[in-house]
């Protein structure tokens, strides 16, 4: 029969000042761990959410990002007729896009951010079906109007409904705000492709990319084959989702590795704190432990009991850590994505599995921090410990 758990619970409570040290150490580590990972997750999720399964992205062969790609109008005309493309009321659902960058001040620091400006075709919402206008309206083809993503609206200065902004050599009126489901599009400003190209002195018959809406996700194969084997075209075709997933790798790797290092270092510190707490617990309770062993509770019972106590402390620390950073969930921040050179607003994304991971991490720290002290407790010389002051 094991030593009753109530003994451990009450003992921890009685020595709470000492236990607090271990609890806080573990809470801090778990907090940082969850925060950093949720930052990386949020960044990645934003980009991954930017694609649809049934959209295909076309860029010039060899181009790694839209920014470095170029697709001519003649190529667009050929692509439009390829098999697999869904059709709308006015023809194939295709949006040839010009991707540009403009310096717009961040609301938080008032220094410039490289904001992505996307010239789109007026029927773009039929191709990117997950995007909805939530305030105002869509821009009208041929007019100097733009719509902005919901994150762009809150992160960059001047992108408010009704406001006029200067892009290229033209003034544009912000007529609508759209919700792109937390994807990278939420950080963008969209307008008529032809007008935007003109405003930036770009040739009118040249775009950066073409996005098409397929009949179904499976139509990609057929479409891709047709387009890549056409001798008149020199393009790469990929599923929209894949393109965006690749755009996030560097930053996600950076944040994950940095966060991982920091969390690891803190974990070692937290384990030290737990060890300290548990060792002093064993030292303080020498007589109690010896008494229980004298009464007949064997070594394994004692080890198990102290291990359990360490787990109690670390579990509590883990929960505390998760709760503390939970407030960050959904908090938006922005950073520059080196791969695309443009600014991207994203949110911390704390998911249940991340928190469970944090608590498991805490328990592991607890086991490591509790094992040796527990073994020491079991090995105490009973006879002497019974009588010590």
């Amino acid at each position, binding site marked *: 029969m*094991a030593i009753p758990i109530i003994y451990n619970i009450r*003992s921890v409570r*009685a020595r709470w000042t000492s236990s607090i040290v271990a609890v806080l150490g573990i809470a801090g580590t778990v907090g940082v761990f969850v925060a950093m990972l949720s930052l990386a997750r949020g960044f990645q999720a934003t980009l991954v959410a930017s694609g649809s399964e049934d959209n295909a992205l076309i860029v010039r062969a060899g181009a790694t990002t839209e920014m470095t790609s170029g697709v001519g109008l003649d190529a667009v005309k050929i692509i439009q007729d390829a098999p697999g493309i869904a059709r709308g009321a006015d023809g194939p659902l295709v949006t040839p896009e010009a991707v540009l960058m403009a310096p717009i001040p961040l609301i938080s620091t008032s220094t410039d951010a490289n904001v992505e400006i996307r010239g789109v075709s007026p029927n773009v919402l039929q191709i990117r079906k997950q995007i909805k206008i939530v305030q105002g309206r869509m821009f009208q083809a041929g007019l100097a109007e733009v719509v902005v993503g919901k994150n762009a609206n809150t992160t960059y200065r001047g992108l408010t409904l009704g406001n006029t902004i200067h892009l290229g050599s033209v003034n544009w009126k912000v007529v609508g705000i759209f919700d792109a489901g937390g994807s990278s599009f939420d950080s963008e400003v969209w307008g008529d492709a032809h007008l935007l190209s003109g405003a930036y002195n770009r040739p009118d018959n040249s775009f950066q990319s073409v996005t098409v809406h397929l009949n179904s996700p499976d139509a990609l194969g057929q479409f891709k084959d047709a387009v890549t084997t056409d001798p008149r075209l020199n393009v790469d075709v990929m599923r929209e989702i894949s393109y965006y997933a690749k755009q996030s790798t560097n930053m996600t790797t950076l944040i994950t590795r940095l966060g991982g290092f920091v969390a690891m270092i803190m974990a070692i510190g937290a384990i030290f704190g737990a060890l300290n707490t548990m060792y002093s617990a064993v030292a303080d309770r020498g007589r109690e432990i*010896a*008494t229980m062993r*004298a*009464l007949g*509770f*064997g070594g394994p019972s004692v080890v198990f009991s102290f291990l359990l106590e360490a787990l109690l402390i670390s579990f509590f620390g883990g929960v505390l850590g998760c709760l503390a950073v939970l407030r960050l969930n959904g908090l938006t921040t922005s950073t520059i994505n080196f791969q695309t050179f443009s600014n991207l607003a994203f949110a911390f994304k704390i998911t249940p599995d991340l928190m469970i991971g944090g608590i498991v991490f805490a328990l592991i720290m607890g086991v490591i921090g509790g094992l040796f002290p527990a073994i020491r407790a079991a090995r105490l010389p009973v006879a002497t410990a019974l009588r010590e002051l």
Partner: protein
Amino acid sequence: MIRVDGQGSGTSLIQVRGLEKTYKRGGEDIRVLQRLNLDVDKGDFVAFMGPSGSGKTTLLNLLGGLDVPSAGSITVDGDEITHMSGSKLTNWRARHVGFIFQMYNLIPVLTAFQNVELPLLLTKLSSSERKKHVETALSVVGLADRMRHYPRQLSGGQEQRVTIARAIVSDPTFLLCDEPTGDLDRKSADEIMALIEELVGKYGKTVLMVTHDPVVAARAHTTLHLEKGVLVEASKAEPGVVAGGVR
């Protein structure tokens, strides 16, 4: 019948033959117990006295299975404990020995009830059965009304009584007391000794007790002196004869 000459008939409850215990201290061997013999029958009440360092505590530890001798044998109710291994010895101890220490050794975060219940957790008794035993033990020592109190809420004498309740709750074969009244004032000490006498007289318990206090020792049936590593009888007719000479 209590004997120290090793000539017992072999029917006694506790039988010690040729017990030796040697410690290494700073490179030297110190022989604390030398070929010690002892026979104790059921229902006996023995007090051990002797100067400090004479080995009284060592003897108690060995009898209680908290330590192993360098040589010799200890047999309790037919079980030879000197050759028992760690976990077997631990189990034996749980079933056969009740400990009463000078410093009570109660778990401060557990109530009186929970402290007394501890030894029963090692048995297969159900929760309600355990409750019955604990309540009985606490009534015997007169603390039934203080079951839910924590040690810090009890006086010294009350704490010791809880310890005694814990010592008897699993109905052990014998009780080992190490200076049971050491930390108490005269009045409380008297109450504790009266209780222990009652355990012997009314409940037929076997008690082995170490003490330095001749008044306390006088309560036992026999007092044995530990001198030069062996036990020597002191005559009951001469209660004043105490090795070490402190009254």
